[in-house]
């Protein structure tokens, strides 16, 4: 692997200055940015409006020319068809031809990639299914809502089975279920060896799935690093248990006091995302009709797993933790106390959990969370309460990950 090939995306002193009419520098949008995104990484690109995120992406994709510096993609430049044929891009808005139907749209981009007819046909159907637009393949994209257009936009970015995905606000305008599906999809894509540059304002999304993040402000990188390292409070300890008696709480206060700290005790709150998904799933179970997007299936088969081996990374832990934790039912949350003594050297597992979700795990003790996560990945055949997860069955079975419904059942069983 050559030096310049060591990164999926690499920018060297990338600078973009927008001049005024007279050619004088007016705005420095990106200022000497050195970005290095490794293969097989999900990189979250953050920053307030106008911080230069989209400009950077456009320079990487050769939509804008850098005033200074260079942007390399997959070891080359993006205007080289050999390189761009391995890149998938979803811009900040979908920018699709309004008169083409969803199917024609995908067919058009498939043709540009020179995919043979049979391959195109197969990929289009599976992608439509994947993004939950199976029934809407023959509707013009112009009649789609923003979220549905995003889904088609994502499908077109995946039609060439890219090695690198550049996603600008991929979940903007998408319903929470769609958002959740997309996030799962991105994680799965990364598992299959793809590199993802994710640009988003939805910090929770970025936090959930990214390996590393970079925060841009005024065209320069303010901070960059692994999500966990950046967010973890090394000087605090969080403990989650079942509902404790007043006496037990008093003891904990006392113990914390012995260590010289105050203890903050509260009941954890469920994430609205999970709550919403549960409600929609109930409606799905009752087979209510909708003209909107449906639930997508996990991932389609053609998106090949590349033999780029991922070392056991933070992401893997994050993902496992998240799926377990977010699967917990709201009712279990009401039975748990949220105890946050400060500070303590004992940390990691809970903080990991906290990173992944604000919701508590069902286990009474921190130590037990980890064993639960490890036993989770066995495939199960139980009746699915949750159709969304049911639709994702293929994916979960395929990679042997936790099936969310199973952990739900477990939790219910333990706490009933």
């Amino acid at each position, binding site marked *: 692997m050559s030096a310049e090939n060591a990164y999926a995306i690499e920018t060297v002193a990338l600078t973009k200055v927008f001049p005024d009419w007279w050619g004088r520098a007016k*705005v420095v949008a990106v200022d000497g940015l050195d970005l290095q995104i490794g293969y097989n990484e999900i990189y979250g690109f953050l920053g307030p409006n106008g911080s230069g995120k989209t400009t950077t992406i456009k320079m990487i994709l050769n939509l804008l*020319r850098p005033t200074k510096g260079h942007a390399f993609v997959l070891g080359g430049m993006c205007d080289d068809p050999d390189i761009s044929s391995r*890149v998938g891009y979803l811009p900040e808005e979908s920018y699709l*031809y309004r*008169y083409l139907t969803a199917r024609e749209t995908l067919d058009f981009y498939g*043709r*540009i990639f020179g995919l043979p007819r049979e391959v195109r046909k197969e990929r289009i159907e599976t992608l439509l299914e994947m993004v939950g637009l199976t029934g809407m393949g023959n509707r013009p994209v112009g009649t789609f809502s923003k979220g549905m257009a995003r889904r088609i936009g994502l499908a077109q970015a995946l039609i*060439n089975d890219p090695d690198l995905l550049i996603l600008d606000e991929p979940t903007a305008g998408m319903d929470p279920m769609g958002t959740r599906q997309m996030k799962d999809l991105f994680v799965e894509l990364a598992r299959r060896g793809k590199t993802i540059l994710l640009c988003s304002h939805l910090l929770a999304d970025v936090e959930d799935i990214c390996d590393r993040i970079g925060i841009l402000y005024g065209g320069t990188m303010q901070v960059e690093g692994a999500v966990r390292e950046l967010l973890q409070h090394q000087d605090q300890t969080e403990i989650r248990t079942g509902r404790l008696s007043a006496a037990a709480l008093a003891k904990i206060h006392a113990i914390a006091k012995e260590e010289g700290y105050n203890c903050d005790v509260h009941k954890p709150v469920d994430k609205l995302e999970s709550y919403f998904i549960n409600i929609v799933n109930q409606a799905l179970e009752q087979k209510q009709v909708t003209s909107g997007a449906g639930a997508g299936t996990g991932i389609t088969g053609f998106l090949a797993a590349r033999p780029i081996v991922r070392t056991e990374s933070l992401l893997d832990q994050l993902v496992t933790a998240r799926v377990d934790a977010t699967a917990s039912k709201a009712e279990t949350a009401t039975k748990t106390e949220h105890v946050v003594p400060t500070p303590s050297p004992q940390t990691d597992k809970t903080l990991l959990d906290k990173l992944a979700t604000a919701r508590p795990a069902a286990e009474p003790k921190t130590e037990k969370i980890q064993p639960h996560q490890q036993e989770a990945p066995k495939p199960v055949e139980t009746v699915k309460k949750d159709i969304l997860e049911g639709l994702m069955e293929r994916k979960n079975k395929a990679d042997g990950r936790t099936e969310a419904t199973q952990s739900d059942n477990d939790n219910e069983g333990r706490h009933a």
Partner: protein
Amino acid sequence: MHSLWAIARNTLSQAIRMKAAVVVVVLLVVLLPLMSVTMEGDGTLLGKLQTFVSYGLGLVSLLLCVLTIAISTFTLSNDLKRKHLYLVVTKPVRRHQIVAGKLLGILLLNIALLSVFGAIIYGLTLTMPGMIDADPAQRERAQAEFFTARSGLKVTYDEAELIKRAEQRFTDLRAADQLPRDMEQAQVLRELLAQERMVVKSCPSGRTKRWDFDGVRFKNPDDPDATIFVRYKLETAGVQPNDQVYGVWKIGDLRQLDAGVGQVKTPIYDALQDATVRTFHEFSVPADAVAEDGFLGVAFFNNPSLNNTTVILDDVEVLFHSGTFSTNYLRALVMIYIRLTFLAALGVSLTTWLSFPVAILVCLVAFFAGTASGFIAESIDGLGTTIGLVYHLTLRPLLWMIPQFDGDHNPTTYIINGRLIEWPFLSLAILVTIFVKAAVVLLLGMWIFRRREIAKAVV
């Protein structure tokens, strides 16, 4: 290549969904049959045919040109404005392929539309003689002058010889000190040249004027019904009653007369014609008048018993069959297609750096300039002599880039006069308009498009 086709297909489906395209198609589908019924011309079958084809082809050409301008300036600018190109240029496609794909799509659409409407006009024209009640003479005339393709040989004069004569007269006049004092020398010279031009065309009363034509080659030399046509326009130096001129024409291998009256191999035909001044006239004689080596002599005798003034014969031309109506019609459609191709290339090329409204305006100006190219070239050339070098470096190349759509390049005049569009002429038009002018415009557009930024500066 596949991406080129993908973009061409997409452009095609984009164009088909444009309201302008629908309007043009509906308009033509309704208007063309209606015109074939209502057009009368001068009341004769020939007049009706000529009027219909003239207006029909003219309308198809005009509407398709306007449609091509609209689509070609819309497609790329719209893709840029609505940012559809963000997705396209980030795919494995070269920038020039995008421009070429857009053009290809429009060209394919034009082939389809021109074929359909060309076929409609062709069909209506062929059925027209059967639909109306016309006498056999009218039908014969329509057959001979319209449903044919004729080549013409024109009389040419040696301009250098005329200039020499004018200069000689000028020198003589100066030597005799008879130059008009109120005129500049150049003006006198111009006047003398005009006089010489007139003299060489004139035939005084009681005299004969003869023209020799070489290379009269028929499509079917063995056809016994073949005819040749003499076409002319005349003027009189003096006043003729009713503006009528009576002439005796002799057509045939007049070299036989030079040798004195002897054995005549090919017949020499006489034709008595009374002609109104300043309008074109045509008469025909059997084709066996032409000598075997393709020579034909035409002579005009200014009969002093009927005319008492000098007759000036303009644009004397011999016409003969050299092709069929169908192939000629096809060539006319090709000429229209040449226009459409240039306009499409211009439109797409302009939108690589201009917005839609500006590009369409420039395109329309180019189109109308092309339609009036003769007039514009003449008027600006007249201006050009005074501004000299600047003009030659700036305006002239630009003017040259404007294609010619009028005069010789107007296909309808060929069809309504039953004139063959000569293949060398057509290929030259294709070469110059498509492979030079349109190509230059297109390459320029591709070059600009390759260099420009697709995304707008947004901060």
